[in-house]
């Protein structure tokens, strides 16, 4: 599988990272080098092998479904680049 310029453009958009037009070619080249390296995995016989989901087997703990935290909107907003009237502010989303 080889990544071309168009695929690089699509991946950059999916990742929400702006990449300038003149850099897409180089980026595709870097992707291909890394993917070529990881494609060694195709040599491994994984027939019947379960994918790992937890590296240390443990049961997830459960707790009562109740509010244990919160009630401090000013702390939540303290680091926002733009916060107004108790909300995060962003550019207009709805046309």
């Amino acid at each position, binding site marked *: *599988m080889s*990544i071309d310029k168009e*695929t*690089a453009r699509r*991946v*950059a*958009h*999916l*990742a*929400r*990272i*702006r*990449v300038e037009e003149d850099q897409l070619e180089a*980026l595709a080249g*870097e*992707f291909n*080098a*890394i*993917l070529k*390296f*990881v*494609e*060694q*995995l*195709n*040599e*491994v016989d*994984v027939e019947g*092998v*379960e*994918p*790992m*989901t*937890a*590296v*240390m087997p*443990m049961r*997830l*703990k459960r*707790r009562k479904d109740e509010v244990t935290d919160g009630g*401090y909107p000013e*702390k*939540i907003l*303290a*680091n*926002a*680049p*733009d916060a107004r009237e108790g909300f*995060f502010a*962003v*550019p*207009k*989303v709805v046309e």
Partner: protein
Amino acid sequence: MGDLSKLTIAEAREGLRKGEFTAVELAESCLGEIEGAGALNAFVQNTPEIALDQAKAADARLKAEGSDAPAMCGIPLGIKDLFCTRHVPSQAASFILDGFRPEYESTVTRNLWDAGAVMLGKLNMDEFAMGSSNETSHYGPAVNPWRQKGSEKPLTPGGSSGGSAAAVAADLCLGATGTDTGGSIRQPAAFTGIVGLKPTYGRCSRWGIVAFASSLDQAGPMVKSVRDAAIMLGAMAGHDPKDSTSMDIPVPDFEAALAGDIKGKRIGIPKEYRMEGMPGEIEKLWEEGAAMLREAGAEIVDISLPHTKYALPAYYVIAPAEASSNLARYDGVRYGHRAKLAEGEGITEMYEKTRAEGFGHEVQRRVMIGTYVLSAGFYDAYYRRAQRVRTLIRRDFDTAFEAGIDAILTPATPSSAFALGEMDDADPIRMYLNDVFTVTVNLAGLPGISVPAGLDEKGLPLGLQLIGRPWEEGELLKTAQVIEDAAGFVSKPEKWW
């Protein structure tokens, strides 16, 4: 008092209890060293006011509780910038978290402060812990206090916990926190001649540590001796209801586990770690390490970990995949940097410009690789396959342990520290190969420790790695202690900064 910062944690603990010096004097000694060590670029935030307040409190506690005070009481530490520390800039060495001051404290640092430890400041690292040389840091690289004989060329302290390693090796602090996703504690520890321990996955809470690859990340101590690793891990570890992957088991007395011998222990030497082109000095050190353990009564056994070769390729699918998901939160809305928008630009441009400006090149590359391997049509071919290979890598270790192997001895790194800038033109895979001996341990969730064991002919430190059974850090530390005692590594970098 100028030499207090050179003490080990164990020595300082004793001196504080005997009243030879106070926690305030100890902290002041470190703060003075930090001030004079700007050339190392190890600390990226200094917190002298917090340090002195905590040190005063530690002195009061030592006075009140005497020898009942916790072992870490009054011990000055550096904290990797990946740990969120309340009201202190915590940026994971990234511009995208510019100005971020958390309203909360990570569990590991909270545990350390509760035990009376003292925060000197925040330490440099690779951006979001993605790197092996500290060169991806927004703050510029930390510099290794070690230099090659007869050279002034600046060397990397390794990465990602490069600032932590440089600070401990240069005696700017008594110990430092690190995190390890593929080798980020053990490789820099080896490059700087200190001890670095990655605990079993789940031993330390990940809550409040900026996430890179959640199934691999684990915090651990970076210190001057094996005993110090035991002491500091004891204070960092423990179950945390806020991290569902932290194990709810008691934290043993790791320091007590150092007593006793390793007679009859079976130490595995994995043949797959004998890489082609391995420098003769590394090979020799490895053999010497085996001889030290044999002399202490251990049995050295050749073993096979057949899927070793596939660990790095699996890692470079799994880690970027998890990173692309974890780093989705940096969108310019809740914290950190937000790009300025031109007339007519909307929310998509805000995301894309913010992330292009905020993330460095290596982070962007890994986020995009992760996005690609998780995207529709490729998930099974890359991600699912890598997770199946990961199962096989874990099974290799299980098989060895079931056959009675107690610990596994390997080199920590394929070379000693290299020069800053040396890898600039290399393709990324060459940098990734730094983690070839360490990354298997993260994929299998096991504890691993790097112990300094000698100098190469350039006069630079080399480390040996020991890998232990899950949850048996105590036994691992005991074995590491044998290497430390037998190797007698006491070299220190000559002060040039």
